[in-house]
């Protein structure tokens, strides 16, 4: 039986189900207890699981990561919520040099089965230090898996898989999707494997390859252009590491024109990796137009809402870009 729930509810369900299923799973973060987290994701969790397993941490990302990594290597399965993904910079060393490397450095004798949940992205008027999409920085570090779901269904299924994974998984959530994204989610147990992209909409004339919040924008543009007889495919990567290169190549070969989109800053963004995946494969020979990218402008996120909207990728810019090569 499927019912409609929000993205935030789907994430809470995934955490709760896994905590019920496995007593080694625990949850740590700032204000995640009685306050339910900055975005209300963990509503009711502390009441169900108690303060031992839903731990309100002091304002120290370094401490939270340190606790989580230490617990993980001793057999626990911690979930860390950094209030804003931007704060990962504070605990960068723990993520990059410890969590990502330990399994390798100790010759496979140690696993670091933790999930780092990151409320990311802009559009909330939270200004330059609370609006970034920094997933590309994790993608660059071998040893980390990076997931970025766009729907409640995907968020729940992927988060459950991430919690069960024996490696550190960076789980990028879109702040704007928490309440806005609603969708059917089965009540029955299900998981979604990492590294499998999902065609959110079939098309033949052009494929928009994207993930997270931008999937919704891509679908809007596809729907609009359908009225003009254009068939736009929307490929939701869902997980960036591992990356479903086969799905990318398949879609490109079919559609022959590509727009790559993400909310992260376009320059140096993960989109470049997607483009490179295409041009380095035999999909290159199927390209019938230059590949275009849509992302945030290369500037600190403005606080002014109008400027913020301009700096972020939006539907109008995506549509214009699609039309450029369609």
């Amino acid at each position, binding site marked *: 039986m499927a019912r409609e729930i929000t993205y935030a509810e789907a994430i809470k369900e995934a955490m709760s189900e896994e905590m019920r299923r496995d007593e080694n799973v625990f949850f740590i973060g700032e204000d995640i207890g009685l306050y339910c987290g900055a975005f209300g994701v963990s509503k009711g969790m502390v009441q169900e699981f108690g303060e031992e397993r839903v731990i309100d941490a002091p304002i120290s990302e370094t401490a939270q990561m340190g606790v989580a990594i230490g617990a993980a290597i001793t057999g626990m399965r911690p979930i860390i919520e950094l209030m804003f993904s931007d704060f990962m910079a504070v605990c960068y060393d723990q993520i990059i040099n410890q969590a990502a490397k330990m399994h390798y450095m100790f010759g496979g004798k140690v696993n670091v089965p933790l999930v780092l949940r990151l409320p990311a992205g802009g559009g909330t008027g939270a200004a330059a230090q609370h609006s970034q999409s920094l997933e590309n920085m994790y993608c660059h570090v071998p040893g980390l898996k990076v997931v970025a779901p766009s729907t409640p269904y995907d968020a729940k299924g992927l988060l459950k898989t991430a919690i069960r994974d024996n490696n550190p998984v960076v789980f990028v959530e879109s702040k704007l999707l928490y309440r806005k994204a609603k969708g059917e989610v089965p009540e029955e147990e299900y998981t979604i494997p990492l590294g499998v992209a999902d065609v959110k909409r079939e098309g033949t004339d052009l494929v928009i390859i994207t993930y997270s919040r931008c999937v919704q924008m891509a679908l809007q543009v596809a729907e609009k252009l359908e009225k003009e007889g254009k068939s736009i495919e929307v490929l939701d990567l869902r997980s960036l590491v591992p990356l479903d290169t086969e799905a990318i190549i398949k879609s490109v070969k079919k559609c022959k024109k590509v727009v790559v989109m993400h909310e992260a800053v376009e320059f140096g963004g993960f989109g470049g990796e997607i483009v490179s995946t295409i041009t380095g494969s035999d999909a290159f020979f199927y390209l019938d*137009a230059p590949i275009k990218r849509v992302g945030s402008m290369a500037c600190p996120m403005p606080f002014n809402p109008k400027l913020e909207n301009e700096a972020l990728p939006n539907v109008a810019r995506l549509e214009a870009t699609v039309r450029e090569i369609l």
Partner: protein
Amino acid sequence: MATAIFMPKNGMAMEEGVLVRWLVKEGDVVEQDQPIMEIETDKITMEDIAPAAGTILALYAKDGDTIPVLETMGWIGEPGEKVEAPNAAPAGPTTPEAAAESVGAPSEVLMSFPPEEEAPKAAPNADGVILATPYAKKLAADKGIDLANVTPTGKHGEIVGADVENAPTGPKATPVAKNIAAANGIDLGTVEGSGFNGKITKADVMGTMHQAAPAPVVVDEEGVEARVKMSGMRKTIAQRMTQSYFENPVVTQNVSADVTALLALRAKINEGKEKADRISINDFVMKACAIAVSEHPLVRTIIDGDELVTMKATNVGMAVGSEGGLIVPVIKNADMLSLSKLSAQAKDLATRARNGGLKMDEYTGSTFTVSNMGMYEVDSFSPIINQPNCAIMGVCRVRDELALVDGEVVVKKMMGLSLTFDHRILDGVTAAQFELRIKQLLENPMDILL
């Protein structure tokens, strides 16, 4: 945007053409360059090609209609697209005016050069590279298509996949070569290309037209050695000859002219001249005919409905045979030219007629025609009138005849003349008077020079 189909202007003098028949109907989907209609100019019948790919949206003209050049006869475009009413000026890049400009320039026209309104082909950019998407390149490689033959539609002038998909397959050939081949019914597969990478050039196609008969097709048919499609030129000749033969009640009158004095005079004139500057017997005959035609208005007369129309100019055509067929270049106002000028023009036109370098203006507009078979030892023949002319002079060989002059046996050089005339316009007596005038001029060659 829809593309207009219009009556092509195939030469400066062409003002209208006849739509013989449509080869397509409304609603048909056509490829660019696909033959869509058969049209007839005053000289030839030819197929004309679709200026664009698409659906035939409208065909205004009807089979048999005479249509002024550049007038819109129909439209090609997307199904459902709105097109302008008949006679409205077409819009878009393929305007008749633009096309007219391209054909108005003195292009070399032998028989039928369709207007070069074909979309511009891919041109290398400043770096010498033909812009094409990877997919277009892959498709072109798979299909064996030369990107240089593909019309780009990309926003930056690049060839995209669809352009290659829409590109005509077949031998590599320049657009002009393709047009000439299509208009004259030549299969490019039979033409050997001499251009870059074996590309077929205009010269290659022209060479095929003029030197070689179409390659015979070996057929499995009892008693048949070969079955060959008629070339466009052969078709034109066949049609025009048949038309002339069956439409005109003709009479051929044979006379002989004593050209002993003419040959002597010619020898004198040619003394010390370079071969290229020498006056031929045919030049004398042409000039004599021109003088006689100018003096006999009825010979310059044609039938138009129930009216007789007398033309002002004495334009004398001369039949030139080549292996490709027959063509009649015309010496305009031949009666007013000196013998040497006429001779020079005749040489130039004959040479270019044989190698296919005539402009359309140069083989149309004759009022009288001379067909010289003298060099082939023909004693007498009945030439077929080159319509819409009223008469044609067949020139036969010069024979030695014995004659008695003052009781002495002398040798005379006798030239046979076979005049075929349209008995609707000329009666026997008038024709005889005209022919006698020519005989008189040839026998008194100084009169030709005066």
